[in-house]
């Protein structure tokens, strides 16, 4: 069984996924798994310390620490002036242990006080660590975000992280391929977040199970890289192996000049290769879904699964209309959320608004929210928190004055991290509190015991914070859509 050299361009029409897979397949293993070569590994303090320690105790060294990166994002506090101390009682142990293990093994660490610290899936594209054509894995389910730049990236568990660290490979069963083509253009005020919630609500939280999902079509091609990251981020909420978008001129422009991206002569060679990373015209997918972009509206979740999503203008369902197994789950979800069957979503009063997470915490997300909040105040009694996805995003937002817009409207302005996307940091809006949130999971207890989460876009979060109840943003002339620089200048003036 000799190694196979990567070959560019295959004879028969090939999908983007298959091109990436073939370029990384060391060999097909007996039993049907493939041994897949891993180019980059990302770790974080929640699981990185355990993986590195466990590897060491098993006697396996980290094979290539130079291509391993680690950040502190999951547990770290996001209060200004933070240190190692965390709200979560034992959180400091994770941070200290991760720092020690990272330094010992020689991996590149973005520590608590590093100027480029941030959420793994925000900083890896931001710094050009995730690149088109690379494989990247991280013991975090939202690693699929990075498929947005044409990387083959997926979330793994701790044991798999140890395997990748020790061997630069993983033993993986090849998933099937699905293409989701989104025709036309998203309407003003409708974002990538609404698109992915629409898809998951239409096809189920397990609709992508067993598939690598490529997003394609005119609506996808029009998205900026950050919006693409939002879309692919929630591929895991669709139960997909990963999400993928073919790299294009927008992707190239995004990466040029980034810290870890190819420089000088290497750039042309890399970019030439990236241009080959697209599904051939006649490539056959195992499944195709076609959506019309103009049918998609601002979405919000009513229940405790991302599939429990409806248009903001809609109503929670009646479980009696569900098939048997779904009815019980739906009723439990309504009970947890404290809402009645048929509840009009826009009549639901909220207690809190959260903007952050690897889904929606990048500069374009903050610009969008700020363009809605500018000159407005959030409703009395509503707590608002904004957590930039990285310290670079934070600095950029501050340079643009966005933080002032947030603070003047009544939002707290934080340091970067995963924060209240989940409860690992020990911070929560509290039991029974209703939160409209730009995050990715509305599971029971996700944002703290008894906390009720409604997932939505940053635009909907901002508009809801102002209204005091769930509300879609009214697209206005000055609303930032991320479409172009001129619109941005117009929006934030």
């Amino acid at each position: 069984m000799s190694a196979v050299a990567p070959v560019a361009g295959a004879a028969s029409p090939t999908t983007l996924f298959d091109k990436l897979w073939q370029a990384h397949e060391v060999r097909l293993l007996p039993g049907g798994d493939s041994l897949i070569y891993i180019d980059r590994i990302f770790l974080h303090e929640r699981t990185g310390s355990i993986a590195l320690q466990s590897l060491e105790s098993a006697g396996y060294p980290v094979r290539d620490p130079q291509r391993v990166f680690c950040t502190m994002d999951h547990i770290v506090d996001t209060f200004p002036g933070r240190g190692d101390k965390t709200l979560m009682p034992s959180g400091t142990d994770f941070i200290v242990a991760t720092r020690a293990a990272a330094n010992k093994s020689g991996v590149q660490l973005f520590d608590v006080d590093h100027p480029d610290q941030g959420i793994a899936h925000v900083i890896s594209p931001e710094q050009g660590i995730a690149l088109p054509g690379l494989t990247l894995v991280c013991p975090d389910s939202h690693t699929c975000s990075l498929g947005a730049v044409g990387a083959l990236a997926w979330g793994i568990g701790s044991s798999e992280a140890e395997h990748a660290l020790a061997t630069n490979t993983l033993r993986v069963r090849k998933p099937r391929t699905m293409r989701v083509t989104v025709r036309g253009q998203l309407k003003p005020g409708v974002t990538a977040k609404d698109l992915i919630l629409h898809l998951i609500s239409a096809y189920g939280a397990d609709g992508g199970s067993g598939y690598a999902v490529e997003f394609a079509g005119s609506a996808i091609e029009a998205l900026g890289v950050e919006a693409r990251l939002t879309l692919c981020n929630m591929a895991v909420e669709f139960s997909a192996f990963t999400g993928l978008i073919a790299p294009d001129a927008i992707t190239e422009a995004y990466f040029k000049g980034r810290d870890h991206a190819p420089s000088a002569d290497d750039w042309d060679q890399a970019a030439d290769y990236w241009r080959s990373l697209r599904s051939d015209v006649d490539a056959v997918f195992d499944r195709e879904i076609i959506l019309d972009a103009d049918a998609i509206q601002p979405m919000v979740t009513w229940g405790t699964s991302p599939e429990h999503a409806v248009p903001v203008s809609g109503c929670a369902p009646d479980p009696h209309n569900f098939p048997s197994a779904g009815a019980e789950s739906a009723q439990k979800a309504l009970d947890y959320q404290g809402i009645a069957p048929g509840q009009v979503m826009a009549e639901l009063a909220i207690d809190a608004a959260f903007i952050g997470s690897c889904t929606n915490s990048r500069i374009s997300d903050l610009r969008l929210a700020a363009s809605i909040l500018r000159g407005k105040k959030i409703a009395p009694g509503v707590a608002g928190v904004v957590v930039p996805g990285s310290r670079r995003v934070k600095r950029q937002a501050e340079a643009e004055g966005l933080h002032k817009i947030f603070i003047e409207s009544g939002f707290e302005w934080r340091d970067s991290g995963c924060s209240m996307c989940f409860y690992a940091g020990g911070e929560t809006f509290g039991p029974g509190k209703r939160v409209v949130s730009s995050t990715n999971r509305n599971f029971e207890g996700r944002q703290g015991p008894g906390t009720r989460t409604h997932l939505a876009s940053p635009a909907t979060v901002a508009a809801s914070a102002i209204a005091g109840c769930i509300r879609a943003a009214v697209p206005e002339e000055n609303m930032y859509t991320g479409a172009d620089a001129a619109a941005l200048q117009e929006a934030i003036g």
Partner: protein
Amino acid sequence: MKAFTTHTGVAAPLLRRNIDTDAIIPSREMKRVSKLGLGEGLFAAWRYTMPGGREANPAFVLNQPAYANTSIVLSGENFGCGSSREHAVWALVEYGIRAIIAESFGAIFHTNCIRNGVLPVVLPARDIRALADFVQQDPQRHCLTIDLEQMQVTGEGGQHCVFSLDEGAREMLLQGLDPIAQTLQDREAIAQFEQARATAHPWAFRDYAGSAVSAEFKP
């Protein structure tokens, strides 16, 4: 890794769909830098009356005397979806769960099970419903037997369900193999592949940080 060949045990139905890993082990229960000490936190939000508390909620199936010593969970679609936290599987293992029978599984969770000697069994809803009806009649007596060699689930009431599992995963479980040790047998092939890849795509192996003109922030 603990091998899985056959197992007979008490099975408990948790027939909801989309039981996520936050439900299997809430993040607040992952208190230490360790794979141990997690069994107590299994299904904590449903199992105990108060968040962080340890007073058993009598309504939760695993707390009922009839389901003492449960080692098999019966569930619906998409079991183990959500977070990649392997703590979910470590918690199940420590509690004593050896197998989960569901309509489908979250992909990362599925692999995590295989890597920890827990058998994920995929069966159609109809079969799972029938198995649940059988065990519910008398959970302690109506045990299920899962045979990975034969790839079948049986019960003494005549239940007989055949399942399939990828051959690679099946071998790992049957023999309790260490996947890292298995893969390192291919270390030469990996090194050769790496060399060829580095020749074709040198940019993929170079770290340009520091060499690049410090980029202006670009959204």
